[in-house]
């Protein structure tokens, strides 16, 4: 994407600049650091009984303002056909071309100061990288929103109507419920508990309380930070149904907009913590594959876990699940009773089941976690039998999906059932994968070219046929053996 040859295309018309206030908003990023430095130097000078030397703060601010101004001067962007081109850099030129067809997600980030100035930062992620590939900091709010639509639509002229911003709201979180859910989390309880007990201790043994407080200060502060991040990060959460995925907007001081594309969901997890259960609340998380690249060292895949619903009722959760996975609700069965001997603490939650397309498993000791995995996304099926399970005649079957953390676990099933599951699940996965690959010719209709690769043969004579550069080739494959046979005439 990045090219090191500036001005390969003669600089013509259509270049646009960032918002004139962006240098100011950029300096705004430094405000917390500057405030901290100011605080430190003030405290220091008080201790030393001298006047505070804060000149260097002014210098830092000025230098960064100057840098921001130069950055603004040299940054420009425009559309060149189907690519967005961003040029920046004074000494080391950086020119990026972002093909619209490969745009995977566009996030809008608005820090506090930027929000006060009415500007937003636009971050573009391409398929195949997982990290931010292009950023425009900052654009006017309206311009950023419009550009986001244009980028997501794939073409900067057509399809605008398709991705209008007025989707159906799917779920939202009221501030009261968010506050309640954060207060009822383990971190908050530890935090509040220790502060209260410190206060009580202070009444009777002030000196001990002081020592303990000094000892615990670092931990308490970091806990408070976690609580704060949860509150501020998920404040005003709203999920809206969009054509390409679920759009999420959240944040108190910094607003974040992100998109969870429907087709890239590897697994969905619903967690019901013990303390939330009286209120019927739950949390919904999704694992989303960040890239399609299959590179040789296997680093191509990055899977991110995103909160799809920080807190909500079972109904909210079910509603979202219905939209994302089509509400799979296969019958779940608990493991045999003797599994209690092997898993005494989690037996009460254990159950699992599957239908033709999805596997559903419930696990957990204190918090109940339900995991849905589309079998189409399964990477491998594993059967594991430990030394405790063998005498009991039990085995666990895992359905692994991309990423490190999530998998569906059919825990402690009968050995015979486990063996059957391994066969059934791998067969169903194979069927789902073949079904899940529509003909690439269909996907060209919306203006994007399907990537080259092996797809089910449209003629039906062979298992797969190679699709390249917008047409079918003569290369075919059956059970892994390649041969050649002319493609059917173009349709």
């Amino acid at each position, binding site marked *: 994407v990045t090219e090191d040859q500036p001005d390969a295309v003669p600089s013509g018309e259509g270049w646009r600049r960032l918002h004139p206030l962006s240098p100011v908003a950029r300096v705004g990023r430094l405000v917390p650091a500057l405030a901290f430095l100011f605080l430190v130097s003030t405290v220091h000078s008080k201790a030393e009984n001298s006047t505070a030397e804060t000149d260097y703060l002014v210098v830092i601010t000025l230098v960064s303002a100057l840098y921001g101004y130069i950055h603004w001067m040299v940054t420009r962007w425009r559309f060149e056909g189907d690519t967005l081109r961003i040029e920046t850099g004074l000494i080391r030129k950086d020119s990026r071309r972002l093909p619209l067809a490969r745009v995977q997600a566009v996030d809008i980030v608005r820090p506090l100061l930027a929000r006060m100035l009415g500007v937003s930062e636009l971050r573009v992620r391409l398929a195949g990288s997982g990290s931010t590939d292009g950023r425009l900091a900052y654009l006017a709010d309206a311009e950023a929103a419009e550009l986001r639509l244009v980028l997501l639509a794939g073409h900067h002229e057509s399809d605008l109507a398709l991705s209008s911003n007025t989707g159906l709201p799917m779920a939202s979180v009221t501030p009261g419920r968010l506050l309640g859910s954060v207060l009822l989390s383990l971190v908050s309880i530890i935090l509040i508990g220790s502060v209260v007990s410190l206060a009580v201790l202070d009444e009777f043994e002030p000196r001990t309380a002081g020592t303990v407080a000094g000892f615990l200060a670092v931990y308490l502060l970091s806990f408070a930070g976690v609580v704060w991040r949860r509150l501020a990060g998920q404040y005003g959460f709203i999920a809206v149904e969009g054509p390409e995925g679920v759009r999420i907007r959240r944040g108190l001081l910094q607003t974040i907009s992100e998109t969870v594309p429907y087709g890239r969901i590897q697994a969905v997890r619903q967690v019901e913590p013990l303390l939330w259960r009286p209120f019927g609340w739950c949390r919904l998380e999704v694992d989303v594959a960040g890239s399609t690249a299959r590179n040789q060292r296997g680093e191509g895949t990055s899977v991110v876990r995103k909160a799809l619903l920080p807190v909500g009722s079972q109904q909210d959760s079910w509603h979202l699940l219905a939209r994302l996975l089509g509400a799979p609700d296969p019958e779940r069965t608990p493991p045999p009773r003797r599994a209690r001997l092997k898993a005494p603490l989690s037996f009460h939650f254990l159950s699992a089941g599957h239908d033709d397309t999805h596997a559903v498993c419930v696990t957990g000791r204190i918090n109940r976690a339900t995991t849905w995995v589309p079998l189409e996304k399964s*990477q491998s099926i594993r059967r*594991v039998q430990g030394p405790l399970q063998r005498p009991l005649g039990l085995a666990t079957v895992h359905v*692994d999906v991309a990423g490190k953390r999530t998998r569906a676990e059919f825990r402690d099933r009968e050995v015979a059932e486990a063996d059957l599951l391994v066969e059934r699940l791998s067969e169903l996965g194979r069927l789902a994968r073949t079904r899940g690959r529509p003909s690439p010719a269909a996907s060209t209709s919306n203006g994007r070219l399907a990537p080259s*690769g092996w797809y089910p043969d449209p003629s039906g004579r062979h298992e797969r046929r190679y699709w390249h550069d917008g047409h079918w080739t003569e290369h075919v*494959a059956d059970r*892994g053996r390649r041969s050649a046979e002319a493609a059917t005439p173009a349709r």
Partner: protein
Amino acid sequence: MRRAEVAAFTVVGSALFGLIFLAALGAPAALAALAVVLTVGAALSWFVRRRYRAWRYLERNEDLIVARGVMVQRLSVVPYGRMQFVELTAGPIERLFQLSTVKLHTAAAASDARIPGLERAEAARLRDRLTELGESMAAGM
């Protein structure tokens, strides 16, 4: 292959210990040390043998099955289409015995399977076959 490794270690180890103890404490201590090393070696080779026997693989039409483990028995079914890349490695001891290890990588961290101790020719054949199958059955994420 592991049996050969253990045997080699045992012989070298016992010779080494024997020499050290002979130099330091005289003949009786050296003999005792020798016996201990030989016993440990025998026990180890028994474990390793069971481990070796438990390790097996099966190529099927659509997927590869790898089973291993004595205490914890594991069996993985990896579809060819899900393999991201296949790796062939050979450590110094494996090279000594003309052996190689084939490793399969998928996008899921948990499902990575490996087959150690294959004859070189067989390992190369397996790698080529898996790569070819993987390419022609590749499915997107």
